[in-house]
């Protein structure tokens, strides 16, 4: 009977090779995804840059953007909020962004080459500030200095190709996606801070159809998602589309911004 008693040391010796093999397999399987992630595709990078160049060189466009993002609450709960924007851009110096939030709040931002105007419909107030220059400068000023929300702002700059070249560390080709109106290339890129997925239309007009950004260093790793529809590369737009006419009873209020060295334009009539 004593020979049948379980001996831990003997059992360990008996199964040691199997355990070692299992440990090796576990370690290997843990490293395998990292190897896949690090894989880069020159073809994918070329598609991404082709899209960036196409957008940057476009003399103008209009597009509808339906976006949503995760707002991680204090208790860790993930809530999605949505927004809808219509963007009309005419280079070098005209921009119009109509915005509607999922709670019904509406807003408008206009830039006519000289003045930026922001209108908030619910409060019937608007603010205006002089910012002579091109769309690139106005967009940066809006987001950086006035802290206005303009998702994917870098995609509307002529410097988009350089921005991507500088920021994107790796690009992988995920698949050809056939669920859109046109076949698209699904790309997965990584920067030092975010994971970026872009679905780019195949063909002569490599326009983005969908963008997903994952903020992997932020608590809860929230995502921003945007779907682009109604692309128009030759929108009919005149000066009136970028000129603000205050509605009846609208009150003008000042723009407030935290000070940042060299960011504020000079007073009336001055240069930035």
């Amino acid at each position, binding site marked *: 009977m004593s020979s049948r008693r379980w001996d831990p040391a003997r059992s360990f010796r008996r199964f040691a090779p199997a355990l070692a093999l299992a440990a090796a397999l576990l370690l290997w399987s843990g490293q395998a995804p990292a190897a896949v992630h690090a894989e880069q595709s020159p073809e994918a990078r070329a598609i991404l840059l082709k899209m960036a160049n196409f957008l940057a060189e476009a003399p103008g466009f209009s597009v509808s953007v339906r976006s949503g993002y995760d707002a991680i609450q204090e208790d860790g709960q993930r809530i999605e909020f949505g927004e809808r924007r219509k963007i009309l851009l005419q280079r070098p110096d005209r921009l119009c962004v109509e915005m509607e939030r999922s709670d019904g709040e509406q807003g408008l931002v206009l830039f006519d080459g000289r003045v930026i105007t*922001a209108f*908030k419909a619910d409060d019937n107030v608007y603010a205006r500030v002089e910012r002579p220059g091109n769309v690139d400068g106005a967009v940066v000023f809006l987001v950086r200095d006035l802290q206005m929300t303009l998702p994917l702002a870098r995609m509307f700059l002529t410097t988009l190709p350089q921005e991507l070249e500088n920021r994107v560390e790796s690009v992988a080709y995920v698949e050809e996606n056939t669920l859109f109106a046109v076949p698209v290339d699904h790309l997965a890129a990584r920067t030092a801070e975010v994971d970026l997925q872009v679905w780019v239309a195949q063909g002569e007009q490599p326009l983005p159809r969908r963008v997903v*950004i994952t903020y992997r260093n932020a608590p809860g790793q929230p995502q*921003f998602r945007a779907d682009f529809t109604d692309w128009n590369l030759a929108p009919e737009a005149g000066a009136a589309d970028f000129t603000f006419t205050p509605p009846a009873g609208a009150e003008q209020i000042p723009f*407030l*911004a935290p*000070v940042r060295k060299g960011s504020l334009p000079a007073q009336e009539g001055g240069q930035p």
Partner: protein
Amino acid sequence: MIIQSPLKALSIGTLLFFLLSLPGIADARGGGGRGGGFSRGGAASGGGFSARGASPQVRQPSTRQTGAAQRPTQPSTRQAGAAQRPAQPATGDLRGEAAAQVGASQRQGQRQETATGMQQDRQGAAAGMQQEHQDYRTESREDWQSHADQAREDRQDWAEDEYWDDHWHGHVDEGEAFVAGAVVGATAVAATRPATTYVTVLPCTTSVVIVNGTSYYNCSGTWYSRGYSGGSVVYIVSGPP
């Protein structure tokens, strides 16, 4: 029966706990009204390509100014360290001189005078060289410091520019802000410079007074007018209308 009773007690207890927890859950969600009280902000709300980190830091420009203000103390600290160095050889020479005086004799005194004279010459020459060396080192250090400061400034400017679309990082609910640039055709501006204080929600229920097309709100003697910050209407502390 023995088994069922504890189960019943457990069920009743669980139900009671759930019912008692409901108000707490409602409070946590902020309940009431059309909105559920959920925060709309967060790292993903701006849809930027950059994200500096987990927690939003408030007032980045102030941090920079503070850092810049502290910088000049660094060279003076190093200067003090450098100034102490020449004292060491001098102390060594004095020790040698004191040792020579212990076994004093005439010859020794003459030798000492000679030695002292030579020593003074050497000391003077050494001090001169040391001074030149010190000047050179101080100059080099200042150049290096200046270069380092410039490089740091460049890096900070680059970093600031790199993260210009990191909307959430600079997000503040209330505080101080400046009226941005030239306010085109404004009829009333609470303050231009220096910074003006604002709140996102008025601290009381108040009636509106409209003067020259501008709305003013009075809360216990403090007057507010409205401003536009980060896509929202905020209330600036202003003077009476």
